[in-house]
């Protein structure tokens, strides 16, 4: 008989290995360390807004490359930010559907807690209506997970058992509960960001035409 637990270990390690390539390390001039996810192969990264508060942002990739990053936009309320680096063919995370998450499902959080690069913790989805729960007294959308996030986990990927990105981890929570921004909230943020940048460009074009 196949040893299920050994097979479980093998599968889990495989998922983590695949996802890890889309995890990067964010450093700032103050020596702080956070995490980010490669969202698009052309150099679009997603992290937490609270990770990019200091200047001098650098991104360290899994292959050791270090590139300067610029802030494309951020949303303090949802604690998400978009960064850009000069890159192409970067290994992206497969985007999952965070609206399909159910309590009890297994998830993995990847990040660089306390500067330990590429570490992973496993847990389950506690609930998907952060609103109305006792975890946080606000009506934002959160994925609540029963795993411990640490400084340095912020901005890292939360993935499902298929390795698909379902959230961006934040650590602004209690010691034994993790919160993540659902990917559909990130998608909404990116859509708004795209529109406002388009407008800015229209404005710029208009000025140029005048």
């Amino acid at each position, binding site marked *: 008989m196949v040893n*299920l637990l050994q*097979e*479980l270990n093998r*599968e*889990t390690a*495989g*998922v983590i290995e695949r996802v890890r390539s889309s995890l990067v390390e964010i450093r700032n001039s103050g020596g702080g360390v956070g995490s980010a996810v490669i969202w698009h192969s052309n150099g679009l990264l997603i992290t937490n807004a609270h990770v990019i508060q200091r200047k001098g942002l650098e991104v360290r990739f899994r292959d050791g490359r270090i590139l300067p990053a610029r802030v494309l936009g951020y949303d303090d309320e949802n604690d998400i930010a978009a960064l850009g680096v000069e890159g192409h063919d970067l290994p992206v995370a497969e985007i999952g559907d965070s609206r399909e998450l*159910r*309590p*009890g*499902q*297994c998830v993995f959080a990847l990040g660089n807690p306390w500067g330990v690069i590429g570490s992973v913790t496993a*847990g*389950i*989805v*506690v*609930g*998907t*209506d952060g*609103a*109305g*729960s*006792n*975890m946080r007294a606000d009506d934002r959308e959160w994925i*609540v997970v*029963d795993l411990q996030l640490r400084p340095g986990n912020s901005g890292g990927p939360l993935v*499902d*058992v*298929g*390795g698909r990105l379902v959230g961006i981890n934040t650590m602004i929570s209690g010691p*034994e*509960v993790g919160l993540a921004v659902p990917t559909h909230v990130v998608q909404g943020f990116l859509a708004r960001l795209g529109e406002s940048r388009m407008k800015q460009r229209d404005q710029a074009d208009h000025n140029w035409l005048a």
Partner: protein
Amino acid sequence: MTEILSSLSNGLAGAVDAASPAVVRVEARPRLAGSGIVWNPEGIIVTAQHIIEREDNLKVGLPDGRTVPAVLVGADQATDLAVLRAEAKDLTPAGWAEAANTRVGHLVLALGRPGRGVQATLGIVSALGEGWRTPAGGNVDRYLQTDVVMYPGFSGGPLVDVEGEALGLNTSAFRGVSLTIPLTTLRRVVDMILTFGRVRRGYGGVATQPVRLPEALAQQVGQETGLLVVSVEASSPADSAGVLLGDILVGLEGKPLRSLDELLASLSDDRIGVAMPLTIVRGGQARELTLTIGERS
């Protein structure tokens, strides 16, 4: 590709799905709601006593999203259990697991409904053991400890197995660890509350402290310790039996009283009204009184 991992994940989410119709929200204290378990379709809810901080304006949040009024039928602080009657019909009661199948190391989920949706945390069974007594003297038929994290509002919710069948009711009220009150205890306490409106508990009316007996006395009565009476309540069963301050209780019904636990064990509800021989030591001499166990009000 990740067949087993996916099965595990879907299996756990499935267990939550299966159990969630019997998990309700209990609104009975300021701000922080707790959880409860549907006991029967007629609206009886069992929950944790410590989350009930008021007796009026109780509400129960149902899985279908409705919030209905509820009344407190009764509560038992000693086992941290309370029974509510919600104004609702056709509820889905919890399905219960066969207790004997639970083993240390099994995966378990704690469920709660502090908000609208059901919430879950995962852990394993840490310890199983014989019956135990809570600090307030409540009898719990089986020791079931897990490492599930009890988030705020999870007290009163069920511990479920991987099939979604309930193993008991979770409480964070005792010992600072996650303990589950098993079905047999729930059944006993709920039945008693539904019948009498309360849990009957035997009562003697003495405060005691364990003391070591002098060697000669220890040999005479055949035990090394007894219970020194430090106060006797007026008109209590002990007072009526003639127990005096300074007496040392050493036996009841022919069984030794060596520790407070042994005294508490003899005060179970089925002993109420029963007259039994009480062996004491007074002035260095063993003697016998007759104690009729009363009911704690």
